[in-house]
């Protein structure tokens, strides 16, 4: 199921076997409220990419993860963890400096660049040009890594942004709209009804013009294992669907 997750986050567009894999997948913005599983999903993507053997994974976040997000089963091997490089830029300025100097670093280029908690870096400087500058630099850094990685799928980019509940102030809406221009592909996470002891999320992927919207259920079992199930979307409705779990359990 980890592969399915990878597709979720990397727009594998499972329906397209002939997809041109010579380019990196489009950058993805992972959105959701607090506690909606963004960090866990980001970390799962990191483990998955680390296992592919294409290059290290760069995980940027403001604060060290207090505990590794819910385990993702056998994928949490020490070897994979070793390939994930954590960096903790403590301020927007530090993050910018890191991105601006990313080309100076030697060694193998990352195959995946992840940033958790973009909202924490934007709060310092909420102006639109600053947000655009940060988004554009993230893209530019990933593009540079892609060139260094060479032919193949390049370097992916996934950025997690915490969103507020409906009715947040319009400033945030503007900022989000701006970020969506730089990240045409988005994945929204929402908590969903779950069985006892489970934590269930609904992941809704908008590939930004590259395909139809797709949805999945992401379920964390009590033992920490994460499973991903495709959710049929032919009904294309966003209203309640609780109780109709037509997706088969893996």
């Amino acid at each position, binding site marked *: 199921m980890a592969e399915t997750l990878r597709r979720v986050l990397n727009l594998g567009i499972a329906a397209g076997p002939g997809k041109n894999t010579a*380019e*990196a997948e*489009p*950058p993805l913005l992972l959105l959701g409220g607090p506690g909606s599983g963004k960090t866990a999903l980001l970390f799962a993507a990191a483990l998955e990419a680390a296992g592919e053997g294409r290059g290290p994974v760069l995980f940027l976040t403001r604060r060290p993860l207090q505990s590794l997000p819910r385990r993702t089963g056998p994928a949490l091997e020490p070897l994979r963890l070793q390939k994930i490089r954590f960096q903790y830029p403590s301020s927007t300025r530090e993050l*910018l*400096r890191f*991105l*601006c*100097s*990313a*080309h*100076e670093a030697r060694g193998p280029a990352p195959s995946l660049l992840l940033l958790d908690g973009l909202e924490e870096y934007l709060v310092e400087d909420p102006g*639109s*040009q*600053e947000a*655009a*500058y940060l988004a*554009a*630099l993230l*893209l*530019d850094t990933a*593009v*540079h890594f*892609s*060139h*260094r990685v060479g032919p193949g799928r390049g370097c992916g980019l996934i950025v997690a942004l915490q969103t507020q509940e409906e009715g947040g102030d319009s400033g945030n809406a*503007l900022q989000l709209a*701006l970020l969506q*221009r*730089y*990240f*045409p*592909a988005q994945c929204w996470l929402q908590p969903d009804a779950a069985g006892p002891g489970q934590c269930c999320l609904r992941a809704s992927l908008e590939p*930004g013009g590259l395909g139809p919207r797709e949805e999945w259920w992401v379920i964390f079992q009590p033992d920490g294992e994460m499973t991903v199930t495709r959710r049929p979307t032919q009904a294309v409705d966003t209203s309640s669907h609780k109780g109709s779990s037509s997706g088969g359990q893996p």
Partner: protein
Amino acid sequence: MAARTGPLTLPAVVEELLSEMAAAVRDGAPIPDEHLLSLKFVFGSSAVQALDLVDRRSVTLISSPSGRRVYQVLGSSGRTYTCLASCHYCSCPAFAFSVLRKGDSLLCKHLLAVYLSQITRTCQQLSVSDKQLTDILSVEKTQEA
């Protein structure tokens, strides 16, 4: 931009116009009038200003040994603006206002000048060290008008 990797790519009709222009000027010919007209239709006054910047060889492609690149455009005011090579971003105030905030314009004149310089192959080239490139990227934030 060479690497049209998705974000903020131009609408298909504009992309088409630019590639037709590229084909037409391939042998060193000037940009055909019909393309200039289309350019003005799409971009309005920015088109004229961008063409002017191109004529004056105002666009410089800066690269470092790392392979990373960035553009700098010498504006009409004498101020230099920085444009990213991988996606649409320019440090000029017009970009922040007309493109980002209002969504009136697709590109500012500097970004358009970058595209046109690529097509007409009139970019100046400048090689800098990796560290210098970091500095150039670092001062990209909005410069005062």
